[in-house]
């Protein structure tokens, strides 16, 4: 047992007080002349024995109470096994590790676990003596390291500095393991010459922080350091509801092309949750009972999960992003995982000129029949593409620059001035899409339109009997094909091509293959031409050479190609990113400076890498939410108009690690076993103890003084009872 305030033991001398008071009382008893004194004598004699017993009992009770109070003030502590305390007056080196992982945002009462941890650490730091050293670090910092701002190089006696470092710790959305922090702390303490070395770890003891348990017992022993773990959750289980997974896609199997959202909600508590509201929010708008919003309810038994699906119409905006969120009825808890963000490609209005190179009196035999319906399926699908279909005779009457995109579908030739106009249109930033067919003459295309299309070779046939060619494995990294990742990719292979055009092998540079056939021949090629782009589909957009137009994949593919070409495709990077992970997106356009705006309001430039392929990399993903990327400077150095536009060039979603939503706590025994039982103290928040400076809360142990005080109170209560009781 250890006494934290041993000087108060002098109070034991107070046991003599009742006796002294009694003796003084006798001396000061007033003299009173009384006639019936014989009766006093007789009554005293009568109850003499009981009176003596009562006096003795009172003496014992009073002395006992004084003794217990004196002992309680001395603050005895029944120390935990193995934890040594430095003699009072010894100096110490202390490292304070604050767990600021995502789960520490858990709110209990008026504050979060992190705020409570910082407050407790503040008390301990404030109690350090001038000769004590300290260091404050967080399990995660904004800089990505373990130290906090302002950065300190090592242990310091500057208490104000320590408090400043502590204040600088901010909540994070990371799921961070504890072990690196402990290793860092031990490396700091190894260099200390102080008599007592301690590590204070303020954490909620969730299993996630100890995912990679490491045997540090020897390290602690080697450093002669002690570890005090302060449980910010005070031993209480932490219940939580969270959206742990979200899938978002366009459902191409449905003709209405709705957005499909599939949210997985988990109940990490022992309570049965009924009627949990799950709703969808588009963009930054709150949910309304309008178009594109939905909500539903879930019933979640304890420790279970459920899936909520939504099929939504798009809200009709250029950029699609939103979140699915759950609305809890109870206050507090962990709210950051109550929503999960998603992004989807969308479109802007665009005008498309379709030149039907093979018109027919039979509508369905027109080259543009399927193409026009794919571009604007009217009631069957929401499209912002406004096609204008003309026949070759009408070419002279149109101006290409009036359109966002020009599609030449199986066009034999153009008037020479229109070729020049088209070429100029493309070079100045316009877009053109060529599909081929029986009307296409290789020589004409290679000469007159050679600046706009890759060199054609010849048309080849693949007999129907052999099944024809199909579209090959998809490289869904291309913006055109990203939406076909997952289930949709299988649909691509369902189409058959019986005749295709081969192209000459192209030198690397301005031409790239976007889509290939099953035999490896290019099906869709992209070519840059000045400021513009062109794409070439090496088959037909009607049923002459392929059954693609009647396949479900035709419509989205045509739309994606057109949107991409016209620059209206909000190119969405790869899927979901977890906080802290890098987000990368291949770049296919000319160089441009980018700006990233994160959910925290920070603006920064992403990095660009060249190998193995050119891509934009965003590594600063500290916050969950939607990250907006804008192009700010064009390749020629001038500002890009969209910088001023509220609509970003692309977006991606960052979400918290769902593993951190599970707030199950680690078994303390297991923890102590891996960290070394002899040197680890583990107790509730504000655990008892006292050491240097007599400050409590530094050592795990059983505080005896509350027990002593309660017992003393009991004795005093008994004393009052005995005093009030008449022995007769």
């Amino acid at each position, binding site marked *: 047992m250890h006494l934290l305030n041993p000087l108060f033991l002098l109070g034991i001398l107070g046991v003599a007080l009742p006796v002294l008071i009694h003796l003084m009382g006798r001396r000061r008893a007033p003299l009173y002349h009384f006639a019936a004194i014989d009766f006093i004598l007789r009554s005293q004699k009568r109850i003499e024995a009981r009176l003596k017993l009562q006096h003795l009992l009172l003496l014992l009770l009073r002395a006992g109470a004084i003794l217990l109070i004196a002992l309680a003030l001395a603050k005895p502590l029944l120390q935990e096994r193995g934890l040594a305390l430095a003699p009072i007056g010894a100096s110490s080196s202390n490292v304070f590790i604050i767990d600021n992982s995502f789960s520490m945002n858990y709110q209990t009462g008026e504050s979060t676990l992190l705020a409570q941890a910082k407050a407790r650490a503040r008390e301990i730091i404030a109690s350090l003596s001038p000769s004590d050293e300290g260091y404050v670090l967080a399990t995660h910092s904004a800089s990505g390291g373990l130290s906090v701002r302002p950065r300190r190089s090592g242990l310091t006696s500057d208490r104000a500095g320590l408090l400043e470092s502590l204040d600088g710790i901010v909540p994070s959305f990371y799921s961070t393991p504890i072990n690196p922090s402990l290793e860092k702390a031990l490396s700091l303490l190894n260099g200390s010459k102080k008599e007592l070395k301690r590590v204070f770890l303020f954490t909620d003891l969730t299993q996630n922080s100890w995912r990679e348990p490491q045997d540090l017992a020897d390290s602690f022993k080697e450093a002669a350091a002690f570890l005090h773990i302060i449980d910010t959750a005070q031993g209480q289980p932490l219940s939580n509801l969270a959206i742990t997974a979200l899938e978002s896609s366009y459902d191409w199997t449905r003709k209405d092309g709705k957005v499909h959202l599939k949210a997985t909600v988990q109940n990490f508590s022992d309570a049965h949750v009924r009627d949990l509201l799950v709703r969808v929010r588009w963009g930054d708008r709150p949910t309304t009972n309008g178009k594109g919003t939905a909500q539903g309810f879930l019933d979640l038994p304890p420790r279970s999960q459920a899936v909520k699906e939504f099929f939504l119409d798009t809200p009709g905006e250029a950029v699609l992003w939103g979140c699915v969120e759950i609305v809890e009825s109870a206050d507090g808890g962990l709210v950051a995982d109550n929503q999960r963000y998603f992004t989807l490609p969308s479109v802007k209005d665009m005008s498309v000129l379709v030149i039907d190179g093979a018109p027919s009196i039979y509508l369905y035999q027109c080259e543009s029949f399927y193409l026009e319906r794919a571009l604007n399926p009217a009631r069957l699908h929401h499209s912002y593409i406004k096609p204008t279909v003309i026949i070759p005779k009408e070419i002279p009457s149109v101006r290409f620059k009036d359109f966002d995109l020009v599609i030449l579908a199986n066009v034999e030739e153009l008037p020479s001035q229109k070729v020049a106009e088209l070429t100029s249109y493309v070079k100045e930033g316009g877009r053109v899409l060529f599909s081929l067919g029986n009307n296409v003459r290789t020589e004409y295309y290679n000469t007159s339109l050679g600046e706009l299309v890759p060199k054609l070779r010849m048309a080849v046939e693949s007999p129907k009997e052999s099944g024809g060619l199909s579209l090959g494995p998809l490289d869904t990294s291309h913006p055109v094909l990203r939406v076909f990742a997952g289930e949709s990719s299988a649909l691509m292979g369902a189409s058959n091509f019986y005749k295709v055009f081969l192209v000459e092998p192209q030198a690397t540079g301005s031409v790239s293959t976007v889509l290939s056939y099953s035999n490896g021949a290019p099906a869709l090629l992209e070519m840059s031409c000045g400021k513009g782009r062109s794409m070439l589909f090496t088959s037909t957009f009607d049923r002459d050479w392929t059954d693609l137009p009647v396949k479900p994949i035709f419509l989205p593919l045509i739309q994606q190609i057109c949107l991409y070409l016209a620059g209206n495709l909000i190119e969405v990077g790869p899927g979901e990113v977890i906080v802290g992970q890098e987000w990368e997106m291949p770049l296919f356009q000319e160089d441009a400076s980018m700006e990233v705006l994160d959910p925290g309001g920070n603006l920064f430039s992403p990095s660009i890498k060249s190998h193995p392929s050119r891509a934009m990399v965003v590594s600063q993903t500290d916050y969950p939410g939607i990250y907006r990327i804008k192009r700010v400077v064009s390749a020629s150095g001038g500002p890009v108009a969209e910088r001023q536009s509220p609509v970003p060039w692309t977006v991606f979603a960052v979400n918290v690690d769902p593993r951190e939503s599970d707030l199950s706590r680690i078994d303390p025994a297991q923890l102590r076993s891996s960290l070394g039982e002899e040197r680890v103290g583990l107790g509730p928040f504000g655990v008892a103890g006292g050491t240097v400076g007599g400050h409590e809360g530094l050592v795990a142990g059983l505080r005896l003084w509350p027990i002593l005080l309660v017992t003393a109170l009991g004795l005093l209560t008994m004393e009052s009872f005995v005093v009030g009781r*008449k022995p007769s």
Partner: protein
Amino acid sequence: MKKPEVKTFDPAALSKISDLSLRARYVVEGTLAGIHKSPHKGSSIEFLEHKEYSPGDEIKHIDWKVLGRSDKYYLKQFEDETNLRAYLLLDTSGSMGYGSGAMTKLEYATTLAACLCYLLLTQSDAVGLLLFGEGVPASGGYIPPRAKSNHLQVLLGALHGLKAQGKSRLTHVLGDFAERDPRRSLIVLLSDLFDDVREVSSRLKQLRQRNNEVVLFQILDSYELEFPFGELTLFQSMEDTTQVLAEPRAIRGAYQAELARFLEEIRQGCLENQIDYWLVNTSTPIDRALLGYLATRERFHQRSK
């Protein structure tokens, strides 16, 4: 001689008492013993015996018939036929000097005795006084009973200025008194009776056995009855040097039990010996004490008819 100061004489109380005279009680006694009248002056006398004439004796009492027969001068000696011969025995021991209120027990007893003297003398009863206590000089402690109207002053003079002192020696006084006057009398004892209860009872029994009417006024202070003290106190006896340190709160119950036992013993003793017993609290007005006593005696007298 300086007239004694009458301390508490309540004329209103006295007028009430005159309706309930002691005479009523003793009418019965008087019928047995003889005829009792209530004259204010002149009384019928009863021939007791002859005494040879000595010079100086009153000649009106010469028995002429005896002179005619014997040619010698003899005086007739008569017994005064009074209503009552009363003795007031007043305890002046040290314990009687205690008082928590306006009057000490002695002052209360003195005043009560004075009332009784007045009432009795008004009814031409002879009243005598015996003061006992170590502080009383031998010569001034006894006044023989007389019925004369001027006897009141003598009595009041003896009652005036009494000091409570020493031990009471009550049992000795009672024993001695039994020998003093063999004639049947009313004996009124005014005391706190802080003495050997058994001995006192025995002596009172002796008095009763001589056919005396005994009335006992036990006078106690309210503090002696209730023992209302609180803090630790050093109690000092009022009759000797005895001291005791006591916690009143602790012993109050036992004290009251002891006192109750003492009072019960006295009451039982009086009951057995047909002694009128009155426990008087000095906080009780004197006229109430007297009225209560007289009313009880009146009822007793009515029941006796």
